[in-house]
């Protein structure tokens, strides 16, 4: 495997709204699904306890089970998304399901970092824009949003551009498909010098 990963430059898709605030990683993927040694196949467990009944059948009222969710690659979620456990299984499950971006007014730190390392864009927007997205008038499927990493812009269905911040190195990695591991391995000489000076 090389030092490169698939670049993420734009995401253009319809969106689904999960209104809950403080969605913790135990909701994104409950702990009983963590007894795995692989990262594949976790999409089916995404939001498992909200998504399925006791007998495993889909709950018709949960947003991902509604017809308008089909094909949506952008999840618009409530404040402080991804709090709690450090499990990277959370972005693996979101990516496994088919999401490529999550839009919220705030992300928990570890989730934010984990998402970026898996080609899942965490897009932080002001609460008034979030409110507009949640209440956007819809007939069935919600309209498409466009997320452009290079210009750090989220384009709303009416064409309004909204700036969102991305840390400069994370942006570089997304656009160029650079893997942080490769960057760190290239610092080997400096790491060795540090170890020499700090035995």
């Amino acid at each position: 495997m090389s030092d490169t990963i698939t670049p993420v430059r734009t995401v253009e898709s319809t969106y689904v709204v999960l209104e809950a605030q403080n969605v913790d990683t135990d909701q994104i993927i409950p702990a009983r699904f963590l007894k795995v040694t692989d990262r594949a196949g976790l999409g089916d467990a995404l939001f498992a306890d909200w998504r399925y009944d006791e007998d495993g059948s889909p709950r018709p009222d949960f947003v991902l089970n509604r017809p308008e969710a089909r094909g949506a690659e952008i999840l618009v979620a409530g404040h402080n998304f991804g709090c709690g456990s450090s499990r990277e299984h959370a972005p693996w499950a979101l990516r496994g399901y088919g999401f490529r971006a999550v839009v919220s007014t705030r992300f928990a730190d570890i989730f934010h970092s984990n998402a970026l390392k898996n080609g899942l864009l965490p897009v932080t927007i002001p609460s008034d824009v979030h409110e507009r997205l949640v209440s956007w008038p819809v007939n069935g499927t919600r309209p498409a949003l466009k997320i452009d990493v290079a210009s750090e812009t989220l384009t709303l269905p009416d064409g309004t551009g909204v700036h969102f911040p991305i840390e400069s190195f994370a942006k570089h990695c997304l656009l160029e498909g650079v893997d942080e591991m490769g960057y760190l391995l290239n610092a080997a000489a400096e790491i060795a010098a540090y170890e020499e000076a700090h035995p």
Partner: protein
Amino acid sequence: MNFEPPAPRTLFEKVWSDHIVRPATASTPAVLYIDLHLVHEVTSPQAFTKLRERGLKVRRPDRTVATMDHSTPTTPRDERGRIPIGDALAAAQLAQLQRNCTDFGIELHELGAEQQGIVHVIGPELGLTRPGMTIVCGDSHTSTHGAFGALAFGIGTSEVGHVLATQCLLQRRPKTMEVRVEGALRPGVTAKDIILAVIAKIGIGGGTGHVIEYTGPAIRALGMEERMTVCNMSIEGGARAGMIAPDDTTFEYVAGRPRAPQGAAWDTALERWRALPTDEGATYDRSVTISASELAPMITYGTNPGMGMRIDAPIPRPDSAADSADRAALEKALHYMDLRPGERLLGRRVDVVFVGSCTNSRISDLRLAAGVLRGRRVAPGVRMLVVPGSQQVKRQAEAEGLHTIFREAGAEWREAGCSMCIAMNGDSLAPGQYAVSTSNRNFEGRQGKGSRTFLASPLTAAASAVRGAIADARELSDV
């Protein structure tokens, strides 16, 4: 000639700058050196896979220590002294950790071994955790180790791979937040109540982007295990790390532990550690103050650790919430918990009491619980689990006879592990059951699908077990 004194620095700034391999620039984060990497079975397998795919070694196996804790059963040993693993998936995951540690030359404390236990319990007890270090683990409660004046934080599995391969992480410098705890705790109020009160005040996301430093006389008065309880739950307020300046309490705890420096190396280390506390005049990006003397035992009523209150308070009413989103969150939480606004929790029936987890499974926690249970019985119909944080804690408790107190009271005395805090190891609540738990998360389903959790201190947990209902340990004498 002007003499410019060095700018005063916080504890965090000192530890941070001591570990910079390559400084940050506008376009790149800092390369931060990691002194100690703790590993467990759940968040490491995919990182080792990555190393194998790329043909990489573990750079510093001597700075890497693994244990088994999350998916391990806590059921009694068999006649050969082994702990049977009934779950095939868990068994495979544990076997994978064993294979990874063998292949990459990493010290492993396997299930049932002398020093095995919850990763955040064994690090300190072995003397691996020391002041001024950078410590990471693929586990959000790594913040625990900050109690020693270390910078310790949880990381994802990709970063576990980075640290295995390079002993470094790419990091932007977080902001700092002082949480000052004035005054002194009243009897029956504990470290757990301090941190639940802090989280209730700042909110579940209030510390996001920050490293907390806990200061003030009430923090200074805490023992090391109590300080670990406080730092442990920093992440529940959104802060990746919580720190407490090292002092004589810290040094006394570390001295003589198996991995602590000895002889001349100890003296050198001590000199370095004494320079770590925040300098006079150093500033934080934010400061919050609470008064310990005004605190009462705390309990959570909702589905995140920020939904906490005094044990005798009424549950908040959604119509008094700050905004519509908070109101909706509270309504959703109370619906899940099947609780009513304005209701008081004291006297509310519970099904299970859990004493354990990386928050409250150390010997002092077990002594508190045993003190309440001595000469008393767990109420009929209530199941109580006492799960020591490590094999060493278990041996110590048994040497003190605490296990006899628990068993005579009707509680289960289990093997060491994360147990019912994460409910991926056979220990879990049934749907709809209520538990008073000394753990750290009351999220929906955290203790098993449909589980309902009240977070509280070991004193409150033990008192509630005796009453069979949520109880204030300070009022137990009249049972």
